[in-house]
């Protein structure tokens, strides 16, 4: 059960390859109506029905929030992941009927900011596509710094440069171009808010430097959907519903709980929002925590787990579910 979200019946209206790794998907409502309004930074959870299996993956909406005739997402192909992105790339074609959640925003702009400083890494560019469109429409003050591996993998880099010119700065790993982060952070006017979306290592680096350089935590916003990682299968006892389930190699714990007919709350399915937080009653083994929600203390305590992205290895695990 996704907390507070209702499902939308959509049809794929277009599929556009963007580069070697990224493909863009356009969705329209099957009934021809406008889609619900969203704000820059919002995501939807896309249901992928792949034979017997249903995967639910979150993707940032990258279109302009001013245009709700369609939702667009960009999916980076992950050849070693659990197959969600491969399913989208291989199986989804125009005309395909799909179900997506209502949009949810866990990475919204703080519109009290005097300036918005955005740092993107790789496919982390997608929420900024929507945020920059939203800000540009209302004359907002923003600056986007975008790091990509090579120019040809710089998804939407040309488009962003064309739209926003010098407000966009590009950095290419293969040319050894690096953000001078300390200088950038220290030269921002008071009242600037910082937004970062990209690989986990980049987010940690930026958050650490910002905190050290005196950016209050209220001004630092980040989003990193941890894709559920495959791993060794394990067994779990659900104490409340009295079920024992097996989590397969390619399945997330949340998906296994759902497959057993139990309907826990969720929202982002990426270890960010906190909705699916579950109490651990007992365990014998070790947790593989992959979320960004629980603190280090909670991770160490063994009392809680985020079943959307985290796994377990060991003899027994009993959850309050």
């Amino acid at each position, binding site marked *: 059960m996704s907390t507070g979200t209702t499902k939308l019946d959509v049809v794929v209206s277009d599929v556009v390859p963007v580069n070697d790794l990224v493909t863009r998907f356009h969705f329209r409502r099957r009934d021809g109506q406008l889609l619900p309004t969203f704000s820059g930074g919002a995501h939807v959870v896309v249901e992928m029905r792949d034979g017997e299996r249903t995967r639910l993956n979150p993707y940032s909406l990258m279109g302009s929030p001013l245009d709700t005739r369609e939702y667009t997402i960009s999916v980076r192909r992950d050849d070693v992941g659990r197959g969600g992105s491969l399913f989208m790339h291989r199986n989804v074609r125009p005309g395909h009927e799909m179900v997506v959640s209502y949009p949810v925003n866990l990475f919204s702009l703080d519109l*009290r*900011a*005097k300036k918005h400083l955005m740092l993107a890494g790789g496919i982390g560019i997608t929420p900024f596509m929507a945020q920059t469109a939203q800000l540009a429409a209302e004359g907002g003050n923003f600056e986007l710094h975008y790091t990509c591996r090579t120019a040809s993998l710089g998804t939407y880099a040309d488009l962003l440069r064309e739209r926003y010119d010098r407000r966009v700065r590009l950095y290419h790993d293969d040319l050894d171009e690096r953000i001078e982060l300390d200088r950038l*952070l*220290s*030269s*921002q*006017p*008071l*009242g*600037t808010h910082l937004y970062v979306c990209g690989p986990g290592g980049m987010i940690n680096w930026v958050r650490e430097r910002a*905190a*050290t*350089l*005196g*950016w*209050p*935590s*209220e*001004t630092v916003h980040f989003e990193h959907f941890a894709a559920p990682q495959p791993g060794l299968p394990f067994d779990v006892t659900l104490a409340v519903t009295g079920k024992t389930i097996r989590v397969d190699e390619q399945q997330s714990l949340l998906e296994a709980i759902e497959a057993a007919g139990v309907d826990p709350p969720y929202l982002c399915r990426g270890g960010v929002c906190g909705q699916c937080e579950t109490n651990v009653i007992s365990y014998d083994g070790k947790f593989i925590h992959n979320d960004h929600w629980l603190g280090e203390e909670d991770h160490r305590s063994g009392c809680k787990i985020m079943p959307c992205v985290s796994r377990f290895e060991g003899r027994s695990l009993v959850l309050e579910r």
Partner: protein
Amino acid sequence: MAAKSIISRPVYGTLSPQPGKHHLFVADAEGALAVAEMAERTPPGFFDGAEIVFIPGPDGKHAAALEALKPAQFHQAPSFASLQPRLRQTLANAHMGLRLYLSGTEGLIGQAMQAALEAGIDHTSIQTEHRGSLARRMQCVHCKGITENVTTQPATCAHCGLLLLVRDHYSRRIAAFQGVCINAEDRSEIPPTEEIFR
């Protein structure tokens, strides 16, 4: 210490050193003691990047204690109104990495915070410590006039003369507690006046 009440009533903490590149202190009267006490817990060199702005109280004390901290800049002002242009200028030219510390009377903390909010600082990222008088800055909800240093309950509006109940309802935007007419039904009814915000 101010007593806890409704959610809009500000609560204050204890100043503590924050990571940052520049540190701006605004203090009045006994608020200087909060800065001096915090200085005992700061890393060496902390005040090399600090500016202290101080409004001495009626007794004129504590300026020496602040100067002894050897901040990069030390400035004294006779009143908040007189330092306001300087404070706004400092904030307008500041960069991220500036941390703000406010200590002293509620009126000072509130008004300095109001200037900081306008400059884009989130109120939760400001260090505050209340010291000294509990006198309130009050806005009359009827004529909108501000009366400074209100110590009694009820209090008379210095602008329209209405007798006002001084509420705990506080506005960060205008940095004042709200005063509401206490005898609107019958103006001849005059409740006893007590001095409670000392």
